[in-house]
């Protein structure tokens, strides 16, 4: 008797679950309607903003491309971004500000490396925005086109690679590009680079092969050939910059490199080296004398930005306010031309004329 009851209860439960799942349909419909409203609201903000461009009181420097203002409070819907661990802190900061100014949706930003970011953007098609610390590759553009996405580039800033050693290291202050290549590849011990330096193996801590930071370093220092750096011994690689900091901090004979922001956060635990006599700083990045400076990007596609207004709104927001935040995050502003080009790209994608 009890067993029959038990079976009945099970059946009842199953029926209930089924009924519940059916009930979800109206909820989805409501959500669809909500989305439609948002789209309309967003369109209105844009149109109402456009005629105001000439009468803009806070008009910016001449020659600067202005974007129609976005009100984050009117933006809803989720945004998914993934990619470079270098761009991550910047994207996260912009998302925070977006939320602080009233955006109530969810922004997910995954820090998985530029290559993996493009993989998710172009091959899997799961993300709206792909963060990258290197320009997109031809192969990745092809993949993107296969799923109907035409990648659009938005330059958001500039990063410098910081080459760091342990604070106890008292023999190196400066490395030439050749010495740098030796330190990360051909030299077994420090004395192999310079006879006066200690006869101790060099412990290398570098970002993983999936990161744009690694690609960039290989391109600049090893002329795009990863073989020398990958075939060394005493090599530790991680996509997690904290691991690299721990490693360099923990071993006297270590050397490592990563994005400048990460050095900024850990200044007292590490010692940064000058490259070709130039230390990484705002001044030296701006005047182009620091040899290891590189652009930071966000990528999206017209199909995404047009179908998902929240993505366009966020990118607009980023391109408008990035220079307020970027120095604080630890990077350097992109040049005015580069940033204007990004804004122009945004206007072109959204089918708007320069106001």
């Amino acid at each position, binding site marked *: 008797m009890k067993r029959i009851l038990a*079976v009945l209860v099970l059946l009842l439960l199953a029926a209930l679950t089924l009924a519940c799942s059916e009930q979800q349909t109206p909820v989805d419909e409501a959500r669809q309607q909500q989305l439609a409203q948002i789209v309309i609201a967003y369109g209105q903000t844009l149109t109402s903003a456009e005629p105001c461009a000439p009468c803009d009181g806070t008009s910016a420097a001449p020659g600067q491309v202005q974007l129609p203002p976005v009100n984050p409070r009117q933006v809803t819907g989720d945004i998914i971004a993934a990619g470079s661990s270098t761009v991550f802190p910047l994207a996260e900061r912009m998302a925070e500000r977006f939320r602080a100014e009233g955006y109530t949706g969810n922004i997910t930003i995954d820090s998985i490396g530029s290559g993996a970011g493009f993989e998710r953007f172009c091959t899997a098609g799961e993300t709206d925005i792909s963060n990258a610390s290197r320009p997109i590759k031809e192969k990745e553009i092809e993949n993107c086109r296969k799923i109907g996405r035409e990648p659009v580039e938005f330059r958001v800033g500039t990063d410098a690679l910081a080459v760091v050693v342990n604070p106890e290291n008292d023999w190196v202050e400066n490395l030439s590009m050749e010495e740098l290549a030796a330190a990360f590849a051909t030299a077994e011990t420090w004395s192999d680079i310079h006879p006066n330096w200690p006869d101790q193996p060099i412990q290398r801590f570098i970002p993983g092969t*999936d990161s744009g930071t690694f690609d960039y370093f290989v391109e600049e220092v090893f002329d795009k050939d990863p073989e020398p750096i990958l*075939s060394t011994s005493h090599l*530790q*690689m991680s996509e997690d910059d904290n691991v690299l900091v721990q490693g360099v901090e923990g071993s*006297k004979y270590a050397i490592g490199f990563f994005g400048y922001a990460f050095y900024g956060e850990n200044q007292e635990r590490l010692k940064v080296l000058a490259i070709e006599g130039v230390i990484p700083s705002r001044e030296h990045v701006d005047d182009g004398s620091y040899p290891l400076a590189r652009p930071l990007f966000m990528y999206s596609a017209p199909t995404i930005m047009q179908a998902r207004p929240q993505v366009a709104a966020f990118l607009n927001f980023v391109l408008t306010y990035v220079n307020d935040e970027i120095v604080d995050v630890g990077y350097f502003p992109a040049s005015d031309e580069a940033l204007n080009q990004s804004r122009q790209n945004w206007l072109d994608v959204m089918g708007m004329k320069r106001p």
Partner: protein
Amino acid sequence: MSPHASTEMAPDLRKQRRWGETAIHALLFLFATLSILTTAGIVIVLFSQALRFFARPEVNLWAFLTDSAWQPQIDRFGIMVLVIATLITSVIAMIVAIPLGMMIAIYLSEYASPRTRNTLKPILEVLAGIPTVVYGYFALTFMTPLLQGIIGKDVVEIFNVAAAGIVIGILILPLVTSMAEDALSAVPDLLREAAYGLGATRLETALKVVTPAALSGLAAAFIVAVSRAIGETMIVAIAAGAGPRNFDSWSDAFHNLAIFNPFKAAETMTGHIVRISGGDISYESIDYDSLFAIGLTLFLITFALNLISRRVVKRFREVY
């Protein structure tokens, strides 16, 4: 129910009960097959994906087994450097866990009063409830500095195999203790009483009578513990290092036994898998395919260990 009622309703009830019985029987059978199917699915995926790796033109099985470096991006596929790192961490873990675990188990089963045992055993099992990521940072932020303090900062690197191995040993200690204690307790008291009757001390009874009698259970405990140590991931990922210990040639590797040095960084099979897959790697890449080859190797090693353990248990089983 009164007997009267039951006879009256008997035919009807029996029919209904059978129906319910069948349903539950079917449900349970479904779950049982589900677990088998899952296992089969995992094995099939492992094999088929690993096959894709070996089918690549740049890979060959001989290099896979004999090369002295693992760096798939530049066509070096020597699985042995990863296997050796795994073996070093596991051996260190067993050096910590077996003697300690045996001593605790002998104490608990032969010396401790039932009351002490009933308080100590649950406390020991709390160790098993600590998340392995906590153990990982324990190794990195406590064990490594401790080793550096004892042996010297120049010898012990920040990421090193020894700290990871010792902490894995602590991790599997409750497992070893618990299984060993079960094996020792299962030895009938008759044997102990006989030993005491012959004038043996408690220690002699424990070491010379009870332990040999429980050998099959103890061996099983150790082998399960080894499997656990080999498969352990988080601790090695955090504390052991983030790159395989590569060498240009095997003569370099065995020069001063550099490949076995426990105080330097190395990457185990599991550590490598978790690091490479952590970055959401590209599906078409060689790195991605190589993960399955490592996974398959890992699977074969633990599978072999399980087979051996079954053999051992059968071989040494004492029936009383």
